[in-house]
């Protein structure tokens, strides 16, 4: 297999005997961006969690690089650490001024010393984006990264994502409900569709 190639070969995944994912198999090349779409509750987040190595309880095999970043569907910040430290703690190698630049790029400069609970939800989501972008990951996984943002901010984030992907060339997989977003960022779109034995990749 090509170096850095990401391969997903899931036979099945179920919760308490209820199948959620059926046989799913795909590859992502380094530098390639894939969108994942599908109705609410079909299993997109489940697939992402398996891919990221968070959920080891499935049948099948996944091959992924070590250095990966993830934007969770909810911000998942450390509520007891300041905005700045929420960047620095997962990235101890990051210089504070680089962290500040990153915060400015997602539009939450000047909030370094606040706690996440003092941010609006949109601001928290952007902080979580900044956290994923703050290093140069080999792989980027994002679960609906641009929701809860006004059109203008969403456009800024989209551009930022484009810039960072072209800078670091990570293999990227992201979930979205917005087909224009998928068109703009992704070279391929994976669609999950329901079958009795769990979700599989559709046409």
């Amino acid at each position: 297999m090509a170096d850095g190639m990401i391969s997903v070969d899931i036979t099945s995944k179920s919760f308490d005997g209820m199948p959620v994912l059926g046989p799913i198999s795909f590859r992502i090349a380094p530098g390639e961006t894939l969108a994942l779409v599908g109705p609410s509750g079909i299993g997109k987040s489940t697939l992402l969690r398996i891919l990221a190595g968070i959920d080891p309880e499935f049948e099948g095999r996944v091959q992924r690089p070590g250095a990966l970043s993830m934007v969770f569907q909810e911000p998942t910040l450390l509520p007891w650490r300041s905005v700045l430290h929420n960047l620095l703690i997962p990235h101890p190698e990051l210089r504070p001024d680089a962290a500040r630049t990153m915060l400015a790029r997602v539009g939450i400069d000047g909030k370094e010393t606040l706690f996440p609970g003092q941010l609006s939800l949109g601001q928290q989501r952007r902080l979580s984006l900044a956290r994923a972008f703050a290093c140069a990951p080999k792989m980027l996984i994002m679960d609906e990264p641009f929701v809860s943002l006004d059109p203008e901010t969403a456009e800024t984030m989209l551009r930022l994502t484009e810039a960072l992907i072209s800078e670091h060339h990570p293999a990227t997989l992201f979930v979205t409900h917005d087909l224009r977003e998928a068109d703009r960022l992704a070279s391929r779109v994976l669609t999950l569709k329901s079958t009795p034995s769990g979700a599989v990749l559709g046409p």
Partner: protein
Amino acid sequence: MAASRLTPVLSLASMLALWVVAAGLTNDAQILPTPWQLLPLFAQEFASGDLLTHLGATLVRVLWAFTLAMSLGTVLGLIMGRSTATNRWLDPWLVIFLNLPALVLIVLCYLWIGLTEAAAITAVTLNKVPNVAVVIREGARALDPDLDAMAKVYRMSWWTRQRHVVFPQLAPFVAAAARSGVAVIWKIVLVVEFLGRSSGVGFQIHLHFQLFDVAMVLVYAFAFIGVMLTVEWLLLQPAERRSRRWRTA
């Protein structure tokens, strides 16, 4: 702000008032002396140096036992809370040690190790570790799996994870274990001291209890309580306020 600083003082004053009333109703200085009847005794014990010697001895024991019990108990509680398998193994031991009478542990320690300082501190520590572990275990069970996943994805080091992800979630449990911990430890130290030490507040309290000298018992009890109130106001509460800032902000 000024008013809120005054509250503890007023609160203590009201407690003092209650005491005076109770002493008045009891009307027997041998059962419950008034606060001012204690003052000369306090001054006398302080001047003779006895108070400081015994208080010092007790504090050293409390400090040692506290440090040991908190660290061992936290580690044990964390492990048991996070691993169901380990918990199944260790849980019966925990219940047994939790409910073993202090007296039994203390006597066994004294007989095995000898009537020494080390035996005393070991006995107190063994008595308290299960209590701490039981509290911390509940905290470890309530840890947020989403944050765990985040820490895993970003490959945080073990130490970073403990310090920034696990500990802040355990903080209320640690605070609870620590506060009720000091209190329980000091109560066990009292027993340890009267069973086999020749110094300490517990030794003095028991001595004066045998002489039925309630006033002196109270002098020594309040000397320790005074230390605890000071620790509470100068160390614990400011530290807690700092670590709780994110909640109230």
